[in-house]
């Protein structure tokens, strides 16, 4: 499903101006997935995250200055880069194997090995991220506060109060609840309506437009 980065950004910026930090973080995080080098997206997302941290009494990094695109790639760009590196490496390797450039055979072999290794590393990295997203999708708390309670048949533990804008990952689901994972560890269960999956945010922009 193709998402419009500007629509997500505009929805996130509007939510940020209204003080709806949970939706602002969700929309802007989604916009950054599509358009990671956009300075306005990066700036507003940093402002939203800093406001969330400030509301929780924590310190957060200063938002980046406008302009100065960072060397960030979206997942699709990363995949294309990896594929291109693999293609270049394969071409160089084939040229070396078939002896098309006998004088530069060594250069071809080294270039092929480097490109193939870089492509394979990027592929592994992106593959791990995609697998994590598939198993535990990223989500944002969108209600003002929600209590992450222990699940049925789980050992008693102290409930954790979560606030809007906190970024979590989602584990299992049961009934109307989903399991919240923070820092790699499940911390409790919250109602499904209290979180927005980052990958699902475009349908909320559509709803906003209809409203």
């Amino acid at each position, binding site marked *: 499903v193709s998402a*419009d980065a500007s629509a997500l950004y505009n929805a996130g910026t509007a939510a940020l101006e209204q003080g709806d930090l949970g939706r602002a973080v969700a929309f802007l995080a989604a916009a950054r997935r599509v358009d990671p080098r956009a300075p306005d997206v990066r700036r507003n997302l940093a402002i939203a995250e800093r406001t969330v941290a400030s509301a929780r009494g924590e310190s957060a990094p200063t938002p980046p200055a406008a302009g100065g695109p960072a060397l960030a790639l979206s997942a699709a760009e990363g995949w294309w880069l990896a594929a291109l590196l*693999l293609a270049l490496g394969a071409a160089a390797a084939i040229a070396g194997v078939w002896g098309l450039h006998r004088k530069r055979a060594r250069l071809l072999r080294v270039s092929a090995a480097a490109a193939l290794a870089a492509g394979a590393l990027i592929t592994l990295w992106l593959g791990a991220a995609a697998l994590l997203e598939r198993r535990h999708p990223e989500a944002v708390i969108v209600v003002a506060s929600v209590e992450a309670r222990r699940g049925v048949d789980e050992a008693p533990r102290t409930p954790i109060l979560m606030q809007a804008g906190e970024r979590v990952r989602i584990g299992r689901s049961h009934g109307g609840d989903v399991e919240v994972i923070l820092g790699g560890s499940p911390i409790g269960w919250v109602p499904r309506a209290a979180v927005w999956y980052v990958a699902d945010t475009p349908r909320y922009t559509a709803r906003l437009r209809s409203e």
Partner: protein
Amino acid sequence: VTGSARVAVLALLALIPTAAAAALPAGLAIEASLDRQRVAVGQEAQVTVVAEAQGVALPEFAFPPVPGLHVVRAADSQNFSWVNGHLSRTSTSVFLMSASAPGRYTIPPIRIASGAARAQTSPLVLEVGGAPSSSSGGLPPAGGSGEPPPSKVWGDESLPELFVRFVVDRRQVYWNQQVTARFLFYTRERLEEPPMWEIAEAAGFWKEPLGEMRRGRVRVGNADYVAFEQDVAYFPTRTGKLKLGPGRVEARVMRRVDAPDPWSFLGFPETRVETIPLQTESASITVLPLPQGALPGFRGAVGQLVMDVKVDRLAARAGEPVTVTTVIRGEGNLNTAGDPDVAASLSLRSFESPATVTSTVAGYKIRGERRRDKAFVPEVPGRLSILPIRFTWFDPEERRYRTQVSDSIHVQVLPGGDSSAAAAGPPEPPAAPRRKSGPHGALDLGPPAGAIALGAGSIAALAAAAAIAGARRRAQLDPKRRRKDALARIEGEMAALRADDAARAAPGASAARAASLLTAALGVRYAADIEGRPREDALRILRNAGADAAILEEAARVLDELERLAFAPPGPDSGAIDRARALVRRLAEEKA
């Protein structure tokens, strides 16, 4: 007797009395000395016995038994000296003795005898004193082990080498009021390691060590001591007459043993480690109950305390938590101090975290703070009031209860869509909205189909190229394939020979070249090195290599024809080259 013989006899006669004197123990002497005249029970005294005799032989001596004294022979050494033709022998023995009961012990003379010669020491007197603290009745019994209880002094009481003290800052306290106990250890001896205090678990007290053991130098009486101090804070948990202590410590004293043998260990003094247990007195503490009339909200806090109250925000939107933090700080046992009640004007969801206590040592006191968070979650817009928080504690110095009450705290609760963050405004203005759409992209992190195709196709192409290259390399290394290629190449050369006009114009040279090519083809076919050899040798080698007899016969005939043609005068072509070419083809096909 010649002159030189006379001199030798006279010298021998002169040596006889000297040797006799050396062999016979003549002058006998023995001395005994004590390193100290008075010790405490359990302490050791050292007796050094030096026996000397003229001559080689030195009689043995025995230490006389002394009832009540435990004697151990610690070291022996012997020394020989030759002075002015006289040989003397000295024996030095060291004995360590200790008594298990106080009293006056007399060590009888130690006697030695050799022939008619006799010698003995003077009697020695050792006074063993009882433990002063035990004599004063302050020490508890040792627990029925039969051994005397450790003393608080070691050495001469007037100038002890080690002693311990136990000091408490007060003998009468209120319940949960701190009593500071100081365990002090003084030494004039060298210790192998710092002493380790065994802080007794005092019944009815909760204890907290006040930091690490301290060390310093002090002057007590007329002597300088090294002092070690361990401070402990005790908090009584019940009332009545309670006992603190005693504190026990074991000191590992490095004692110098007088080296009896000057040659032993290159003359360095020998030391041994003696473990000396010491024990302080105990102290009786009267613990008073807290006075009647405790104020409401009193949860058992005792000390010099003060309360702070903090709220993390004064404006929040509905659903946002408002956290109230109470901090109690000061001197006292904060672990048992209860937390004040925190309540709000509305009935709200609330969450309490367990209290955390941090403490530090400030002099002889424990200072710290006890912190507890309580979060309220307002559900509806309006005004949320945190009611006054009351904290009550007992001040033992002023002997009265004290109360501190905070002011009410009002938090503005805004509607859910208009949060505190919005009310306060974001920290910086956000970037403006966009007017154009795009860029577009996928939000899932999986690979695009095109990238998958490109990457997978590249890898597949690389694999195919590698497979083809490997097959080619293997084929090039196959000997059958290489032989077939060589025969085909030779046949091609022969065909070119027939097609070349210049070669047709010179049939002799062509025939010689064809003969050379045929020989090479035979060598390649049967893997034999026959190039340049006479024909008979070449045919024999080929026959040995397994060549077919019919082919060899045909080859010999064709080679004969080619040879004749090569050396014959110019004439028409007899077709020998064609037959040679046919034979090469036959060789190739035979292999195929």
